[in-house]
């Protein structure tokens, strides 16, 4: 009755996406956020950048105009 396989895929996708973004942003905050010593600032900024890229992918998913590009990739 219900497509459990696609439900599972959605659950895993949401887990990967949601937790991935939070892990990256948290690491960014940890290394380059307020109250840091600044020793690993570059690493933090790298984390923020990757996180921004992931969010950008999300934006592209929302905008249908970009959908064909993703289909090709």
């Amino acid at each position: 009755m219900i497509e459990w396989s696609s439900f599972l895929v959605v659950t895993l996708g949401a887990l990967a996406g949601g937790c991935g973004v939070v892990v990256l942003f948290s690491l960014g905050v940890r290394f380059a956020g307020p109250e840091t010593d600044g020793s690993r600032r570059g690493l933090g900024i790298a984390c923020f950048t990757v996180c921004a890229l992931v969010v950008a992918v999300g934006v592209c998913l929302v905008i249908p105009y970009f959908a064909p590009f993703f289909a090709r990739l």
Partner: protein
Amino acid sequence: MGFKHSIYWLSKATAFSAPQNAGRLWIKSLYRLSRTAYRGARHSAPVESTRRIHMGIRSPLRFGLPGGSPTVCSTAVNIELMVALVIALALFFDFTNGFHDTANAMATPIATGALRPRVAVGIAAVLNLVGAFLSTTVANTISGGLINEGPSGVLITPTLIFAGLLGAILWNLVTWVLGLPSSSSHALFGGLIGAAIVGAGFASLNLTVLLSKIVLPAVLAPIVAGLVSFLATRIAYATTKKRQRDGFRVGQIFTSSLVSLAHGTNDAQKTMGVITLTLIAGGLQPANSSPQFWVILVCALAIAMGTYTGGWRIIKTLGHGITDIEPAQGFAAEAATAATILASTHLGFALSTTQVASGSVIGTGIGRKGASVRWRTAGRIALGWVITIPAAAAVGALAALVAHFGWWGILFDAVVATLIFVAIFLISRRSRVTAHDLAHANPAHFVRPKPRGNKAKLAAAAATAAAAATRAAPAKGVEP
């Protein structure tokens, strides 16, 4: 008959408005649901019987037959009037949809103080406006196949859509007054089901498909979102130090904007579909065509205006009522909401935005140590979800029943509905929730219970302040 056909064509119209985006799964599932019902109906019911269903419009609006509406000349004005009425109502539904769903994206950033309330709804409104245009610019080449669908042709009654919209709007307004986040799609669907049951009887309802496409996803959506949000919250708190967590405020702005944009691309489509369908049914637009520009424009404006009005009550419930949200939690919850919505629309299992957002907030409440979830409020929200479809259906059915009496019935419907809308608005004035009430972030309430605002609030807060003072007094006495 009415249900099967009207839902079928409605969903088809909404599907053709943007099928290139894989993110229309919600509409797709609606389409599948109705298609199953429709196939059954085509073989069982003769076309003639439907003529009796919609007495509001005497000439049958027919697809699939050349020269489909032979008796239009005598009732042309009526049809145009009816179409205008349905369009007005559809736009009003779009408006309620906007202010009802602002909370999904903007409740948590407002609650944590990441965005000021007015700024937050402003961003949401702009993104909804932009989103509404984004998703239909691609939809120009869509075929849709609205015509030539079977030799008997298909009848669609604006009267039923009218009744269904009344049910949906009424339920949206009731849940808004109660401050309950409930799915606008479910309300629309419920209203149409109710109207159709009056037209075609209970037999027209395919309960199995209803269960698998609407009821079970409604149960699963908050569970998935809650799980993601719970884990994300744990991760965020494990990774960062306590003093760093204000850094999440900036991130919240982006994740909530993403949710808002996703909402804009999805929800304005529904109204565009309804209006386009009605125009086609009224013979004012050729079948097989995509939404006209003015339809896209007014729908985008209506949903943006609704969003900017801000459903402060629902924002309050979602941001403050379920649990007290800190910036890290807000970020985790919004990331979970965005990820779940995007995954569900692109990987093949449609979930309702409202239910995902509510589930995320509950999940983040469980995830932070020391936070508590007010299960009473959560239970009320869940109860609202359960009632949404039956309640909207009941109103839709009642409206459709009255509308059967022809133009007087429709007029009666419209007048009574207007009176009820005004009554709901007056009731809402008794306990106003404004942007100002939400301007203070959550932690401020709990760290410093310093009364602000008018004297009544001051007096009410005095008791708690006094109690706190007596407890704090010994500690303070030592310090100097």
